[in-house]
Every structure is written in C-alpha cells, then in structure tokens.
C-alpha cells in the first residue's frame, strides 16, 4: 500500500494536527512502515469471527441515581490557558 504525502496531509487535517510541510515526507515514510507491519492482518482468515471490542463480557452496571458532583467551576477552570468571566477564551469564530 502507498501511504503518500496527500494521505498524510488529509489524515493530519482529520486529526487536527498542523504538520509542517517539511515533516510530511518523513512522517509518510514512518506511517508507511507502520501500515506495512499491520498489513499482514489482511491475510488472516476471519470469516465468521466475532469482533472483540473489550476484554470482559460484562453488562454495564448502573450506579444509584444520586447527586454526587458539586459545583467545581473555579477548580475545573484553574488550568485553562485563557479564561475570562468564568468562560474559556478562543479566537473569534463568527465575524
């Protein structure tokens, strides 16, 4: 398979990672190697095999429906890189 530079660009955009143009060839080569490792999976016969998403076949237990969380707004916002009036600041989205 070919993990070309366009695929890297498209994937980086989906992942919201601004890869500089200069890094794209090297990343394409590394991803090509990793996908080359993974490629052998295609040859395995998995006809009729169920998918496994999780190790334990457990029903999700429900906890009692009681109030447990309390107002922690200030604590939760303490690590914000930019905040004002209890709100996260981001660049203007609508002109």
């Amino acid at each position, binding site marked *: 398979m070919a993990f070309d530079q366009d*695929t*890297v660009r498209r*994937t*980086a955009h*989906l*992942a*919201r*990672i*601004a*890869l*500089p143009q200069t890094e794209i060839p090297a*990343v394409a080569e*590394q*991803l090509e*190697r*990793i*996908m*080359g*490792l*993974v*490629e*052998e*999976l*295609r040859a*395995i016969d*998995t006809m009729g*095999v*169920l*998918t*496994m*998403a*999780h*190790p*334990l076949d*457990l029903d*999700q*237990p429900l*906890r009692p429906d009681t109030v447990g969380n309390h107002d*922690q707004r200030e*604590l*939760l916002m*303490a*690590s*914000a*890189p*930019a905040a004002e009036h209890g709100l*996260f600041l*981001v*660049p*203007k*989205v609508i002109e």
Partner: protein
Amino acid sequence: MELHEFSLRELRRGLQERDFSSVELTTTLLKRISALNPALNAFVTVTESKALAAAAAADARRAAGEDGPLLGIPMAHKDIFCTAGVRTTCASKMLEHFVAPYNATVVERLAAEGMVTLGKLNMDEFAMGSSNETSYFGPVRNPWHTDMVPGGSSGGSAAAVAAGLVPVATGTDTGGSIRQPAALCGITGIKPTYGRVSRYGMIAFASSLDQGGPMARNAEDCALMLNVMAAHDPRDSTSHPAAASDFLRGLDRPLQGLRVGVPEEFFGAGLDPEVAAAVQTGIAELVRQGATVQSIRLPNNPHAVSTYYVLAPAEASSNLARFDGVRYTHRAANPADLTDLYQQSRYEGFGAEVRRRILVGTYVLSAGYYDAYYRKAQQVRSLIREDFRRAFAEVDVIVGPTTPTPAFPLGAKNADPVAMYLADIYTIAVNLAGIPALSLPCGFTAAGLPIGMQLMGDYFADDLLLNVAHRYQQETQWHRARPSLQAGGA
C-alpha cells in the same frame, strides 16, 4: 541491609518497633532521590514538603495506635495518575502545567492507607513507548547501566524501584508498560486482569487495554499493593464488581501439581539466547518445586503486535481528541482562527511518537479503511483471546520471556518505530485478551543486565501468578540483586 533496600514487610516491622519513623524513612529516601535522580531522571516532580507532612500524619496515626501494612510507607506514582494539587503531566508538553482537580481512585486508596507519596515518575509520553525516550522531560536511564534504556512506558517507576528511591511504585500497562520495564530493570511488576484496578483518574491511552498495577522488588510487595489498588469503583464503568481480593491469602501455596504451559511461539527467532537460557532455568526451578511442564501453542500470538498497532492507536486518537488547546492544555500563541488553535496546539503539545500514533489511529478509523483495519483487528483480537482460552483449559499458568532482549542502548531504536514496537512482542497479547501477567527477575546477561520471566494467567488468576512468583522468590535470589549506584552520576 540499608533502609532503602527494605521490603514492605521489613519497613512495616521497623515502623512498628519504632526503629525509625515514617518521617525518618521519608527523609532518607528524599535524600537518596536528590542524590541519584539527576543521573536517572526517574522523577518528573518531587513533592518534598507534602511528603514530609504525609509522613508526619502517618506517624501520628501510628502513635494513636493505628497499624496497617502500608501505613507510613513511601511510594511514588507514574505521572499518568491524577493528583489533586500536584501537576500531572503524562510526560507531555501538552500537560506540562496541568494540575488535576481530583485524585485518581488509585491515588486516593493508597493515600487513605497512609502511604506517603514522594512525587511523580517519568514515563513515555502518554504511555506511548517502550524505552522511556518519548518523554518530554528526557529519557530515564537504567540503574543497572546508565547508557541503557529502562524500558517503557513505566520506565521511571521501574528505575526508581530498582535504584531504591522508593520501595514500590504504580505503573500502567497497555501493551507491556509495567512488565517490559520491570524485566529490563530487574524488578517485579504485575498487570492485573482488566477491570481489577480502577482507571478513574488514570489518563487514558487505549481504554480497552489500559490497566494500572504495582511495581515492586518482590511478589509479596506487589500483593500488598494490589490488595489496596484492586477494588470495584463505581466511577469507572469498566471496573469489575469482583475486582477486590486478598492477594496475600494464597501466596505461600506450594507449587506441587501446578500445570505450566510453555508457548512455542515465545521461543522462536528473535529471542536473545541469554534471555532464552535464563527463562528455561526459571522454568526448571518451577519444575523442581513440583510443577509439570507442557509445550503449548498460541498460534495467533505472532499477529498480536499488528493487531495492537491498529486498535491501540485507534483508541488513542479518540481519547487524545480531548486535548484541544482550549480547556486545560498547552495552547499555541497567536492562532489565526479556532481550527488553527486546535491544529497548532496539538502539533506543538504532542511529541513525534504521540502524533504518529494519532495519525495511524485516525487513518484506520477513517471512511473506507475501517473494515479493512479496525474491524479486522477486532476479529483477530477474538482469535488471540481464543488461543488463551484453549491454553488455559490445559494449563494453570503460561510461562515465557517478558522481552525478546535485555535492555538496549539509548537511541538504538529511535530511527525505526517498528523496531521499537517489536520490543513488546511477548507482552501485547495479554492486554488484547485482558488476562493478568507478571514479570519477575530470573537472571542476568553476561554484561550484567537483568532478565525477566513472564507468568500469564487466566482471567482473575492474579493471585495464582503472585503465588507462583512468591514461591519462586523463596528459592531464588535474583530479585535481591541491586545495581551499584554512585551519587551524582554513574
């Protein structure tokens, strides 16, 4: 024997008999950390004043008549466990200044027992790595040979325990991150059955694989830690209702009649001959104690690494989507717009290996590739689990090497991500299946590097693994060997 070499049981006895106080013990280890950490880089953050306050509180509890196996005993957490009031970095620039608003359940439970936290331990960034070289804070060095890697991702934990900076530490294991560094640093570490130890407050890498566990200098110390760490937690929806157990209860059971399976796939090409020989000698010791050995097959184990490198990056790409530069992470300066803010912050905040794995995960989950990679890998995961199911119908414990080679030099595998991924060739299948596995020291190479033997058990057979390891350690001395370290450099 010096204080920093004591086991948990010996430390408790010393505290009970007032040979030393928790404050004295804590002070001794803090001094050792300040002398040795510059050469090892095992700690990212040392919390000296908090530690001394916690030690004084533990001494007060003891003076008031309280006792407990962990009361007043120092430890440190892998910097993936959230600690209220102390930064939790995951060894990433992304979280360099992040202070969690709450404690992980594991942190809370150990603190409630009176353990004294000395700080936070270095690791591969977001637990992605097998050499501790992806850390934003620089690599950890192996205490047995400081030109060698300690393994990863819990490399800081392994190095700190091996060097006697702490008697025990926490680690996490997604594809071998407790067992592989334990093997490379000559200590004992267990990845419990998935669901034993709460993941609440443990920063997620691949949620269906991640599991926390103890790293210590012997199996009994692991059992003492796991007795507190393993518990059902309503705050983690994947926590098992029967997670808690008394892991000390069966520790001394004789091994007479134990059925040991040795997988052919673990002794093939790529296995270092010194590692193979040490593990075979380890198996012979189990036989000497009454175990029977048979050869078994895990035919899908050779597919474990490729399966993992679809599923783990897929889950990681989803879990790490939360780091957006807006709420509590690194933020790029002067972004052009909101998308640019996300993209620049994530490029700057994540290191190269983390970015690579996010890209792989995004790719295998993207339209047109999902069935070919993600779905396929989930099916092969079923086959890997079936291999273990069949094996455990015939044997009680599976034994093999933890790693294909002993510790390798810093920088040796940095140019090729795939070469690094193969360092976990014997540990990954266990995480895919969700079963427990333990690594313990079973010898040294001629160059003086530790070798680890891996014990794998059926679901919830964690106690059996600790039992086998404990009995092995009653008759062998490998776990008592200590690296020689000089303060200020080695």
